[in-house]
């Protein structure tokens, strides 16, 4: 069920209706039921995977917490009798048990994810190497189902387990409630990757019908549909045309393609997230934001704080910090300080840990070298700008440009273009093709074709461009207004007739301008793939 299908709209409408009719204490159970129906309808075979993850993580979390409780009870009981060293030894012992239990469970779940996602990638690479060494023999690929949203729910569940291990949240005792946390359907297919501490606050609560919350939720859904149907799915035609034939669509086309893809990616992904958050809001549930107007960022580092926030913070909290703060890394840092000087020693943990994070981020997006190179390219740019930071500081101290609006605009445009270039890695089908396409931008010298109406050769008509320009202007305007607070709140303060006209107008725009139905392929949300 795609978010933009009639089935999904009907499914959600029925849920909303029933949700506020039944006794409130059953609401969360209804959500669980609907989430599993949703997943079942995608493919019954998927259930095995999500159930495995749910059950293993549920029990492991309970075990860990029991151990931790027993430890504090024991320490309290023997507070007077135990020596300091004995206490420490006991604590370390127990902690080791907990760490091993959690580690085993995480390994299992990551193993499942890796098996379904990366087996064929691995086989492909082994085959490549066999060939390189002149071997005739080739391994055959295996056919494995990639369960919908597995990258998202696995991460969400692992995050919960680590939180329990760290003691930042209490383990959920009710297995069904925990199952709902893992499978909550609006965020199952493309995130956000919620934290248990955030989501559980409102997920299991009783919600009475609140017309404002429901209206706001529906408005958010509408906005998501606008982004997805009016902008993303329309621009998609152009992107597909350009990336399908590098030799014809080179040079300026490649440039246009990369800008189009970057626009599409945002409209598509953030539109989907708007629908997710909107549904949750209508249900009285708060799901954390995943975007914060990322294309207004002034540097790549800032961009990664504002784009796909839930994933980035997941990598930060569960990979970046543990790796960089690990004993091994600290030892390594000390070693480096001794041999290569303070400055390098200080930076080494950051560099090494970010390298691992970006490698992981790359491969999380897809079992393909494209994504790995994309991740590492991001890492390179981030590290280079980190190194150049002192130079920038000196420059700004001297010329004081950084306070000028024009310079800020320049920074924003620069970051946007940088993001466009980096995104080329995930829109072309291989690393080599990406470089080739990128290279033609400077060598093809065909910028003149723009004047000859080259843009009309991409499967998009003048009318399509008109709609796109309009859509992007609306998107930009809304983003600008958003900087000073919620747009819905602002509209909500207007008189009733104006409010109705605005939202009904938005609805009509989607109906009339949306790229759906006959002649348009119902296109998957891009992030469903990961």
């Amino acid at each position, binding site marked *: 069920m795609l978010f933009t299908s009639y089935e999904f709209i009907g499914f959600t409408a029925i849920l909303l209706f029933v949700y506020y009719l039944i006794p409130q204490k059953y609401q969360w159970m209804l959500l669980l039921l609907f989430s599993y129906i949703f997943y079942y309808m995608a493919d019954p075979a998927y259930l095995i995977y999500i159930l495995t993850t749910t059950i293993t993580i549920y029990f492991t979390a309970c075990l860990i917490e029991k151990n931790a409780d027993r430890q504090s009870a024991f320490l309290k009981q023997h507070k007077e009798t135990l020596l300091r060293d004995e206490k420490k030894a006991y604590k370390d012992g127990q902690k080791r048990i907990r760490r091993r239990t959690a580690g085993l469970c995480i390994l299992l779940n990551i193993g499942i994810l890796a098996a379904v996602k990366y087996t064929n990638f691995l086989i492909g690479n082994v085959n490549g190497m066999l060939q390189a060494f002149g071997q005739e023999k080739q391994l055959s690929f295996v056919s494995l189902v990639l369960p919908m949203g597995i990258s998202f729910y696995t991460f969400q569940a692992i995050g919960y387990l680590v939180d329990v291990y760290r003691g930042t949240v209490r383990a959920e005792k009710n297995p069904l409630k925990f199952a709902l946390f893992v499978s909550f359907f609006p965020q199952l297919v493309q995130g956000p990757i919620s934290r248990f501490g955030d989501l559980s606050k409102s997920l299991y609560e009783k919600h009475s019908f609140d017309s404002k919350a429901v209206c706001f939720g529906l408005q958010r859904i509408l906005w998501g549909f606008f982004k997805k149907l009016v902008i993303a799915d329309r621009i998609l035609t152009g992107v597909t045309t350009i990336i399908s034939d590098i030799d014809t669509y080179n040079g300026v086309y490649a440039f246009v393609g990369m800008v189009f893809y970057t626009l599409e990616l945002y409209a598509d992904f953030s539109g989907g997230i708007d629908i997710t958050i909107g549904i949750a809001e209508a249900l009285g549930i708060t799901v954390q934001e995943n975007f914060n107007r990322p294309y207004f960022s002034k540097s790549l*580092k800032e961009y990664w704080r504002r784009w796909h926030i839930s994933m980035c913070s997941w990598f*930060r909290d569960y990979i*970046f910090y*543990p790796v*960089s703060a*690990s004993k091994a890394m600290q030892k390594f*840092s000390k070693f480096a300080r001794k041999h290569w000087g303070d400055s390098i020693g*200080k930076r080494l943990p*950051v560099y090494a840990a970010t390298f691992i994070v970006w490698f992981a981020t790359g491969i999380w997006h897809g079992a393909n070298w494209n994504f790995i190179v994309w991740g590492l390219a991001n890492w390179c740019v981030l590290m280079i700008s980190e190194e150049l930071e002192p130079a920038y500081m000196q420059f700004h101290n001297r010329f004081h440009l950084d306070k000028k609006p024009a310079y800020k605009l320049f920074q924003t445009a620069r970051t946007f273009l940088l993001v466009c270039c980096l995104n080329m890695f995930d829109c072309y089908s291989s690393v080599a093709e990406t470089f080739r396409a990128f290279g033609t931008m400077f060598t093809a010298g065909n910028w003149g074709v723009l004047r000859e109406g080259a843009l009309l050769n991409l499967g998009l008509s003048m009318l399509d461009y008109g709609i796109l320009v309009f859509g992007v202007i609306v998107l930009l305007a809304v983003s600008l207004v958003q900087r000073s607070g919620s747009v819905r709140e602002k509209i909500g303060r207007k008189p009733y007739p104006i409010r109705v006209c605005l939202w009904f107008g938005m609805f009509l725009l989607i109906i009339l301008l949306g790229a759906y139905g006959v002649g348009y392929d119902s296109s998957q949300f891009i992030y469903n793939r990961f």
Partner: protein
Amino acid sequence: MDKLLQILSELHPDIDFETQDKLIDGMILDSFDIVTLISEISEVFDVTISAEHIIPDNFNSARALYALIQQLEDEE
């Protein structure tokens, strides 16, 4: 405490760390700073701040961070 303040001001010379208590919430320290800090603290104080200690409450002010260091020194 002075040693800690010195480390901090090396990172961001323009911040008054003695009074500032929104280092994380105010986005003054980012994740790179935190990791650099951990590495410096490990060097100077010989304590290991592990990932589970990295929560805003521990890093929002120099005082909170110092308290964490003392607590860890205590446990060592």
